[in-house]
């Protein structure tokens, strides 16, 4: 399994053709208290960069963009009842959805953990 990160502060764990997608710890910290998560339905086809989910804090709504193209095969519906889980375990139990990748070459442009850490330094 390989973990990738995007500049939009998402993470992807890729096993075979399926990527588990969530937002990074940095993202949840910036958002603050998460009070609502809207997830895509299983079966939805998304293009890389398309709005695929919404996460809302007390203050504002933020769009989550598909980090790669593919078909949503599962959504973490537990987050709909316990959105605060995103603040507790953003890079683990609070994953958003699983995506069956249609073009794994799209992963080439993404960052690994070290590159993402360096990226966070540049925007700090």
């Amino acid at each position, binding site marked *: 399994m390989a973990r990738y990160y995007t500049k939009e502060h998402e993470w992807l764990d890729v096993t075979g053709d399926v990527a588990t997608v969530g937002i990074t710890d940095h993202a949840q910290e910036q958002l*603050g*208290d998460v*009070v*609502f998560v*809207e997830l895509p339905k299983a079966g939805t086809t998304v293009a890389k960069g398309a709005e695929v989910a*919404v996460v*809302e*804090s*007390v*203050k*504002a*709504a933020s769009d989550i963009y598909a980090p790669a193209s593919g078909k949503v095969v599962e959504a973490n519906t537990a987050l*709909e009842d316990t*959105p605060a889980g995103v603040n507790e375990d953003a890079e683990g139990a609070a994953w958003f959805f699983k995506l069956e990748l249609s073009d794994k070459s799209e992963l080439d442009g993404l960052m690994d953990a070290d590159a993402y850490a360096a990226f966070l330094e540049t925007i700090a």
Partner: protein
Amino acid sequence: MPDPQTTPLDALHRELGARMVDFAGWSMPVQYPTGILKEHVWTRTRASLFDVSHMGQIRMPGADAAAAIESLVPADIQALKPGRARYTQFTTLDGGIIDDLIVTATDDGLYLVVNAGGRDTDLAHLREHLPGREIELLADRALLALQGPAAVNVLARLAPEVAGLRFMSSIELEAAGLELRISRLGYTGEDGFEVSVAAGHAVELARTLLAAEEVQPAGLGARDSLRLEAGLCLYGHDIDRTTSPIEADLAWTVQKRRRAEGGFPGAERILAELRDGPARRLVGIRPEGRAPAREGAAILDGSGQAIGKVTSGGFGPTVDGPVAMGYVAGAAAEPGTPLQLEVRGRKLPARVEALPFVPHRYHR
């Protein structure tokens, strides 16, 4: 854009780990490390300290100041005894709202508190329409709000007199060696105080208040969710130059004598709306699900017809669900009226709900 102005508590906010944002030309704390949700709940259960020094404090001395300002606002200011305060609005000639403010009668005239975003406009407005009158921006004063059920006990340790103050009352006193103006009012729906203090002593006062175990700092984020649950208008969002006080459900701020006499800008429209009812009205709205509807979301009636827009909306931590305010056609303003809110292309069921969402707990 010029650099934002900073309040006398700027360094303290940073020391406390606040996340700072630009707000109306000021660098202000939006939240501290505990986060908006906890700050909100703490305010409703204990007491929170808010820096509201960005708001404009204005002194208007003169025995006839009350009569003079009545030419610009629809409230009965002359009826205020020294030490009493009223919420009112500067109105436009066609009955819109230039800004909303608190007017306090003092021993030597009036003390006004206006919004940060309105202070320059308001000062120009006052000086233009009340020429020759002394109108002084108290730029060397900070303003701290201590809000929540424990606020009175905390403040009474410094100044026992505050325990006897009623809601919308104000006194000048000396406490802990500082000259303070303390007013029992606020923007959270809770009991609480706003304390005007010399800028040079603001940090000292803030540290003294924060040292109390009941007190935590809170930022603009919690201030916004608290005022929304309390059904209090935010200028530039729920009210502006296009909305009248009557549309905004602020008829209670136009007292009997002013209704009879008029004599304020926009009286024609405002008195007509008082008589006939406004065409639209600001109401509380409860979305039925968990999804918040934000400012700008379209409001549809039961048949799907667009009848207005959400002017404030978000998550209410005490309500534990989404809450909103917005304008609807007069016929749809009754509590219980079913509505739909358009959020990200979907129509979410909602209902008109009587404001406030969380009962006010003022010390009357």
